[in-house]
């Protein structure tokens, strides 16, 4: 292995798509839902109707770059 190269070594064998897909669907949806609650809920769209989620994560919403007020 060359000493001068920062990125050296070999790439890993790809993970079979059949193995990734079920995770991608279920976990992917969950992650996107979590991001939705931080970024959008009780702003442009609303599942609950309290404004509590919006108010609680409000500063994160602005500082993570989501449109807010």
């Amino acid at each position, binding site marked *: 292995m060359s000493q001068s190269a920062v990125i050296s070594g070999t790439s*890993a064998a790809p993970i079979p798509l059949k193995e*990734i897909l079920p995770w991608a669907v279920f976990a*992917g949806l969950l992650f996107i839902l979590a*991001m939705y609650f931080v970024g959008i809920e009780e702003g442009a769209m609303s599942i609950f109707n309290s404004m509590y989620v919006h108010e*609680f994560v409000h500063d994160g919403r*602005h*500082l993570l*770059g989501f449109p807010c*007020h």
Partner: protein
Amino acid sequence: MGQLLLRGMLAGLIASLLAFGFAKIIGEPQVERAIALEGQAHSHSHTGAAETQAEHSHDGNAEAADEPELVSREVQAGAGLLTGVAVYGTALGGLFALAYAFISGRLLHLPPRGTALVLAAIGFLVLYFVPYLKYPANPPAVGQGETIGYRTQLYFAMLVFSLMALAIAVSFGRQAFEKLGGWNASILGAGVYLVLVAVAAYALPAINEVPEKYPADLLWNFRIAALGTQAILWAAIGLLFGWLVVGSRERFAR
């Protein structure tokens, strides 16, 4: 795969603690200043004959200023900010692991840490920086309450166009790979991406709801703080995830 996902979420959680530290120290003073300005502007509209003005601001978000707060400012700037960034960061780390599983050994033939770092750089540019260039983050009270739906749609439209441009650029790059080699194919792909997002950004309508005589330094400082928060989040996810996926022997190797 479950292991990989957990590592992504762990990397995201740790990264979000770093991003929170930055957002708290650099970002919060700007948020406080913007909210103080908002309060001033609001109390102004209540004095004097500007009755229509006051009426108007009531259907926007400005009403939060004179109604009892649902969540106190201290909680918003502390536990609320931490929770928001941590939930977002952990979810981002999980999505990062999924993307890593798809591209590793397929689109990118680099060792794990290199793959993670390249993925983080591309993710930051495509999912945050390019949409941010068109629709930058704004401090509180810069956007109008009535347009939140419209602004959110446009922001996500830009984000989706950026992602689609990446997909098209990757397929161009892959086709050119045989003929041009990796380096040139990558440059071609980057060029295709840039042209496509430039067209999308040009075609989408501009949003400028910054009030008259709004302090320029506040706007600038806030936008830099927002950019820094996401940059730290992505960079830390890329580095930590790469560090977590290589074997423990390699992890501490010189």
